[in-house]
């Protein structure tokens, strides 16, 4: 790596106009992240035309800043409203909301922010200094490995669910069932679409995520309002114990580093996405903890695990993009389009042909992380004002944003009906203590698992012995079996699960 090029690029990254561009992107992303219903991929798609008039470097940094901002901002609504701004912050609710309810909202927000920023900076460093030359490692993860990892993620994350084993199986099974709706990936024949063209690509993910995560939570809170009027909103008071002390933050550092590792791994593998990353990280933090029973009741490590992994996925998804030209997730795929509009083909040639541009973008990403810290830290007091607004005002506004976010997807009235159906489903699941986390993760993973499993079976021509040449796949299959056994043993020994989804107050 030529250091002169790196420093020259850094210099270019530090001009006033680039600060404004990147800062604008992060700020916009942060606001979109905070608002439940408006999602990251929609925000990027809408923002791409805005970048027509920017230089390529500022345009790309603006869009990456936007992604990073949404990942950090989504923690705010997860912690203060129990309604995550993005599906990938759903794991942040599990401990963030209980901590805020217990009177320490500022501490929860600060832990979330610091975990986001540290996860982000570390993953960006890995992207710059380690990963691009090793991007080809991702090619070792073929269909066999991906199928094994997805099966492991499904079992592992399902193990986090509250309620009984059978309720968990029911929720996961329903998620898998809904995940099979749509055109068959090979024959193109419709499955359970009942003649609706809109369902050909499956149940719209945004409708399922916004419905079960955000909108249903608004229903739950609206109902609670009837019985606990005036006594339910989170108050930011200057309580002496609502201060993040070093001693408390220190214990989350190993969790943040683990979360960054999980997020980077998940991000670097094309397809998995930030939701899988944040839940895997949460689960691993809980398993590694000496006091797992604190999780789900406001453990700072829970917030740190989810947020660090969520943010680490974003730079990590650029590893296969810059190294191989393969997008790591939906947002990275959008960036390919943004690059192309500026006349740049993303991929390994970028490093060879336009290293200045690439290093400027890297420098811009670091600037974005720092801006994110500043916006988050000083914006904390601003966003905290949300808590002063009484719930009868907040709830309809959030519902409005959820519905508008769905309209932006272009599904029309059909999308709103699906959204409402899933909000009702989410409401019932919360009421009767079925894990909507298990449901959602099963729904997200199923189409990927199906495709990779079918590829594996066809490519191996049905011969399982091929796994003997696939040590990585074999390893994850062993992990899946172990996770299943652990789950069964735990259910037999403790009728009560370790981590509860946030309890009804």
């Amino acid at each position: 790596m030529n250091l002169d090029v790196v420093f020259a690029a850094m210099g270019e990254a530090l001009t006033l106009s680039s600060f404004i561009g990147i800062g604008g992107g992060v700020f916009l992303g942060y606001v979109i992240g905070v608002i439940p219903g408006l999602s990251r991929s929609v925000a990027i798609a809408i923002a791409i035309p805005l970048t027509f008039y920017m230089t390529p470097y500022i345009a790309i940094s603006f869009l990456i800043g936007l992604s990073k901002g949404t990942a950090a901002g989504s923690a705010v609504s997860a912690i203060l409203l129990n309604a995550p701004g993005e599906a990938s912050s759903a794991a942040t609710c599990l401990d963030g909301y209980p901590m805020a309810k217990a009177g320490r909202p500022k501490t929860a927000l600060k832990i979330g922010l610091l975990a986001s920023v540290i996860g982000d900076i570390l993953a960006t460093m890995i992207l710059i200094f380690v990963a691009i030359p090793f991007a080809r490692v991702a090619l070792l993860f073929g269909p066999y490995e991906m199928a094994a990892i997805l099966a492991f993620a499904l079992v592992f994350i399902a193990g986090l669910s509250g309620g009984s084993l059978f309720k968990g199986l029911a929720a996961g099974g329903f998620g898998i069932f809904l995940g099979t709706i749509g055109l068959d990936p090979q024959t193109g024949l419709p499955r359970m679409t009942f003649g609706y063209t809109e369902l050909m690509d499956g149940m719209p993910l945004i409708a399922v995520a916004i419905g079960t995560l955000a909108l249903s939570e608004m229903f739950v809170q609206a109902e609670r309002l009837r019985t606990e009027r005036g006594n339910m909103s989170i108050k930011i008071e200057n309580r002496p114990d609502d201060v993040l002390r070093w001693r408390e933050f220190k214990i989350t550092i190993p969790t943040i580093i683990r979360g960054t590792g999980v997020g980077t791994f998940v991000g670097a593998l094309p397809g998995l996405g930030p939701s899988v990353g944040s839940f895997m990280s949460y689960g691993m933090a809980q398993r590694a903890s000496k006091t797992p029973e604190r999780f789900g009741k406001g453990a700072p490590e829970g917030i740190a695990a989810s947020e660090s992994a969520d943010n680490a996925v974003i730079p990590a998804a650029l590893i296969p993009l810059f190294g191989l030209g393969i997008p790591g997730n939906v947002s990275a795929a959008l960036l390919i389009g943004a690059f192309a509009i500026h006349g740049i083909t993303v991929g390994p040639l970028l490093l060879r042909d336009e290293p200045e541009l690439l290093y400027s973008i890297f420098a811009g990403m670091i600037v974005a992380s720092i801006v994110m810290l500043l916006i988050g830290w000083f914006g904390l007091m601003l966003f905290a004002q949300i808590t002063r607004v009484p719930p009868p005002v907040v709830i309809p506004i959030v519902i409005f944003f959820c519905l508008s976010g769905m309209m932006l997807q272009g599904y029309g009235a059909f999308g709103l009906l699906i959204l409402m159906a899933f909000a009702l489903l989410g409401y019932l699941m919360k009421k009767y203590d079925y894990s909507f986390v298990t449901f959602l993760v099963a729904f997200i993973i199923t189409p990927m698992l199906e495709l990779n499993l079918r590829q594996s079976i066809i490519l191996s021509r049905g011969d399982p012995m091929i796994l003997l040449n696939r040590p990585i796949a074999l390893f994850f299959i062993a992990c899946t079996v172990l996770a299943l056994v652990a789950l069964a043993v735990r259910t037999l020994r403790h009728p009560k699960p370790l981590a509860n989804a946030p309890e009804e107050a």
Partner: protein
Amino acid sequence: MTTLRYLAASASIAVLAFATSGNVAADEFPTRPLTMVIGFAAGGSTDIQGRVLANVMEEYLGQPVNVVNQPGAGSAVAFTRLKNNTDGGHTFLFGGTTALTFTPIITEVEYEIDDFEYLAAVAVGQNAIVTAAGQPFQTFDDLITHGRENPMTYAQQTPLDQAIMESVAAQEGLDLAIVPTGGGGGMAPLVLAKEVDFAYSGGTHAQYTPTGEMVVLAFLSAERSPFYPEVPTIMELGYDYSIEDYRTIIVPAGTPEAAKARLIAAAEHASRSERFIEITEGNTFFPVVFIGQEEMEANVRRIRAATEAVMAGN
């Protein structure tokens, strides 16, 4: 004057007949911002071309052209919506025609070819058979020779390319296992990691051939690509199949003549625009063309008939 010239270029008698009386109206369209519907998610080749096209058309028409992505079922969702649109040409679709020439054959959809008008094509779809550099076969003939001795694997993206490749395999006696990929993004890692021997590509190869990581073995399109002049079409190789696709501007049937004429003129303007050519040819490797309405209407119906014949053979 320019309006008249473009009207003539559209070579439609109906349009010409309307021109004398409808000139004033033609100058008036569009009176408000336009919407360009793209039936795929942002980031793909249709989206990239569409966004630049919208930008260039906007300059010509004097009204903003907003791009709206309506992904789903390879544009079938977008066509279903477009069919019922009645805003007089202010909403139009830009994209390929396979949702009309292929999708209705295998699945029930709520629209047909006659529900739309095909105003102008500005780029020719590129459908290729690709493999990774370093495979023991680097031409289509070598692939067939290799395949006669070894079991082979192929990554499909649509039932149509699968049907064609199954016919080729049967004809040549290949033992071929065919896997689904879910699109160009899923195809690339399978090919690069040599998990599959060869694959279908609807344009994604443009990102990997410049680095030498991917090799185009043959084109499924009707003609050779100007960007890979030495690569033959499978038609030239003696297999009587092709997958033709044109990136076309499409409006619902019954759109006012004046609006259609202006959109056609804007499309022709775009097909000569340096910016549109630079991105479409330079970045996505799609040749830019201008094909008027009469020829496109015929093309769509001809391709549909040919596709029905291929699918009936399976």
